[in-house]
């Protein structure tokens, strides 16, 4: 990918990320976070992860952010006005974040894989066809590999259902429990002291 495009997407992601932290108005924060997630989805797609990029837009920028905006409107939260900012919290937040960023950047530079790029680790469809095993034998995946296109979603599906079938069901159960929990939590109690 062209370096300029990467820097542009990184600037969008980090710039709107900064705006989330700095904005006084919660609606500004929520909309900035949606833009930040769209930039992040573009970065995922630049890493050949088309499926993850798509669900990042659908689930995060779509569902989660709408939920956030809905709650902000519902609670009618105004921008913080007249309150003195907590300087101790802001100072410690900035110091901890800067220290963590320095630590992560140092560690990121020293990992063995850090020098790898799309140029020196290209995707090799012929090798995948020969040595991928059971997945490459599936007709849809084999057809994509022959045509030289990345069967990204099909391979994630194969991995999920072949190796992580049980985990997938546990996550499904978690979503059910979450749904029931939300209904129970947001049910208005009948009377102040009485039975709910």
């Amino acid at each position, binding site marked *: 990918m062209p*370096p300029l495009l990467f820097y542009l997407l*990184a600037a969008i992601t*980090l710039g709107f990320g900064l705006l*989330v*932290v700095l904005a006084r108005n919660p609606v500004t*924060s*929520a909309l900035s*976070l949606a833009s930040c997630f769209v930039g*992040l989805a573009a970065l*995922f797609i630049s*890493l*050949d*992860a088309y499926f*993850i990029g798509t669900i990042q837009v659908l689930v*995060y920028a779509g*569902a*989660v952010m709408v*939920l*956030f905006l809905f*709650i902000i409107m*519902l*609670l009618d*939260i105004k921008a*913080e006005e007249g309150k003195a900012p907590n300087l101790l*919290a802001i100072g*410690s*937040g*900035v110091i*901890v*974040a800067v220290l963590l960023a320095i630590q*992560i*950047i140092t560690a*990121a*530079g020293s*990992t063995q*894989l*850090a*020098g*790898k790029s*799309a140029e020196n*680790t290209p995707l*090799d469809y012929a*090798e*995948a066809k020969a*040595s*991928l095993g059971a997945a490459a034998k599936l007709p849809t995946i084999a057809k994509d590999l022959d045509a030289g296109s990345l069967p990204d979603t099909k391979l*994630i599906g194969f*991995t*999920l259902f072949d190796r*992580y079938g049980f*985990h997938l069901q546990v*996550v499904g159960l*978690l*979503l059910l429990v*979450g749904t029931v*929990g*939300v209904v129970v*939590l*947001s049910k*208005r109690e009948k009377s102040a002291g009485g039975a709910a």
Partner: protein
Amino acid sequence: MITLGHYLVVSGLLFALGLAGVIARRNILIVYMCLEMMLSAANLALVGFSRFHTVSGLPDYTAQSLVFFTITVAAAEVAVGLAIIVALFRAKQSVDTESITKLQG
């Protein structure tokens, strides 16, 4: 040339931004948004490692499955968390973290 190192730096900076927000902000909704940002930053690192740690010529799809699970759990977490925030707002009429002192000794 854009290397894995570049993606890891972006991921690290986004995570640090989220952490700064969680510590410094007092509006509990914005604290929650910053938590989501930190989860997404970790996803970016995972997808980066997945792309450049190739398994027989293709990205490592174990990592992308983990990202799928992370996004699912994050979505469930947001739903439950926002329900708790709504319940909290009903009890306190405020979303300021400093007004929540019930468990303070």
